[in-house]
């Protein structure tokens, strides 16, 4: 939650004006100011994170031509999207939601950004059940569910807290494939190729698919083994064999710094590299993190605040582009971070592994 967010606490909905040590001030829709003790903010709904859906129910008389009513609703939705430019995905008419005592038909033009939330699915289920009697529901919810949610990332730029919790059920953006591998795997592969062997991935809500990906992928292995697809099997196996991957959950998206703090216990007293789930380095003759590690190791020893750690004196961050990625980014709260290897890679005589 941050200043400017629209939240709902209990029955009150309003804009957060300030968050103090003891109370938060909420400007309600009627203009009044609600003072909420922070202790009362144990459960609230935030409407300002990433994207939202506006569900509009329209009641029509029982004797209306339903097909025509749905067509009108569809057009109204399209006009609204065109005029305001506020829709992240084309508004759609979900269909009839219910028949009331007077047999009314409810359509629901709504604007949202993929992926699907459960309410949407529910709505569509109702629609498809009714499909036999009325022609409705031009696009099924599952159509939209498969829509890659690239726009979530665009909107998350500069506002990191939008990056993670925006998506409860869809594919996390780090799992979107680049050619044929999820983007997060490029990141993990860079870490491993740089000689890092322990990967800590800081995840947030809706990121379970990432954990599944780096698990043994047992089912797929079994399937491929069964059909003698040896080559594919070799590729799949390397995913789980790349490194030891552990996860720590960032309960609230409170910035990149906070994400890193979440991994403190797992990192311990060792140097570590920070990666962002959506920062991929290509065309590098040497893996980017390895290039950083090489410099890191060259500056070892001096002004080291902890003992027995030769390689830790300097904190090197990549310059130019990489600095902006690693440092300014509040935009990805999922950062995968690697601890320095315990066994030193043969290529690096003074690796951070000494720590």
């Amino acid at each position: 939650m941050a200043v400017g967010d629209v939240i709902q606490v209990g029955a009150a909905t309003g804009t957060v004006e300030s968050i103090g040590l003891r109370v938060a001030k909420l400007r309600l829709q009627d203009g009044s100011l609600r003072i909420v003790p922070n202790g009362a903010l144990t459960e609230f709904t935030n409407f300002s994170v990433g994207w939202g859906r506006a569900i509009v129910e329209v009641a029509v008389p029982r004797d209306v031509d339903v097909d025509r009513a749905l067509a009108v609703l569809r057009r109204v939705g399209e006009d609204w999207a065109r005029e305001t430019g506020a829709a992240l995905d084309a508004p759609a008419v979900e269909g009839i939601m219910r028949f009331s005592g007077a047999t009314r038909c409810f359509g629901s033009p709504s604007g949202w950004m993929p992926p699907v939330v459960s309410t949407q699915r529910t709505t569509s289920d109702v629609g498809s059940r009714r499909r036999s009697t009325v022609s409705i529901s031009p696009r099924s919810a599952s159509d939209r569910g498969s829509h890659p949610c690239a726009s979530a990332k665009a909107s998350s730029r500069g506002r990191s807290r939008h990056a993670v919790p925006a998506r409860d059920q869809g594919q996390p953006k780090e799992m979107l494939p680049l050619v044929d591998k999820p983007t997060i795997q490029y990141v993990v592969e860079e870490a491993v190729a740089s000689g890092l062997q322990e990967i800590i991935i800081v995840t947030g809500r809706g990121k379970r698919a990432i954990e599944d990906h780096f698990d043994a992928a047992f089912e797929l292995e079994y399937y491929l083994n069964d059909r003698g697809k040896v080559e594919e099997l070799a590729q799949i196996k390397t995913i789980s064999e790349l490194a030891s991957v552990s996860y720590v959950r960032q309960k609230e998206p409170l910035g990149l710094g906070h994400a890193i703090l979440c991994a403190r216990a797992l990192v311990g007293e060792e140097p570590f590299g920070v990666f962002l789930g959506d920062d991929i380095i290509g065309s590098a003759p040497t893996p980017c993190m390895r290039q950083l590690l090489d410099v890191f190791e060259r500056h070892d020893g001096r002004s080291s605040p902890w003992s027995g750690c030769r390689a830790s004196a300097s904190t090197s961050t990549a310059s130019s582009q990489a600095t902006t990625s690693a440092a300014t980014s509040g935009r990805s709260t999922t950062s995968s971070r690697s601890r320095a290897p315990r066994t030193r890679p043969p290529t690096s005589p003074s690796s951070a592994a000494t720590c």
Partner: protein
Amino acid sequence: MLTPDLFEILAKTAADKRGEIQLTDALRTLRKRRPMYAVEFVGKRYDTGDKLGFLKATVEFALARPDLSDAFRAYLKGLDF
């Protein structure tokens, strides 16, 4: 590459006005205590968190793949635009 002494600083770093703890703020504090080094790395960075960046990465990574490169290049060249 960061070092564990950063955690102490991060833990004391105040949230910004959006309520977020920024790594940059912690690094700024760290820089006052001891040197930090920058590396001009060789390589190309793709911001896959951005739609256009994601597309660029997809195209360039596909072109760099031995098994796809030729066919994909031919396809791109044949596009009418």
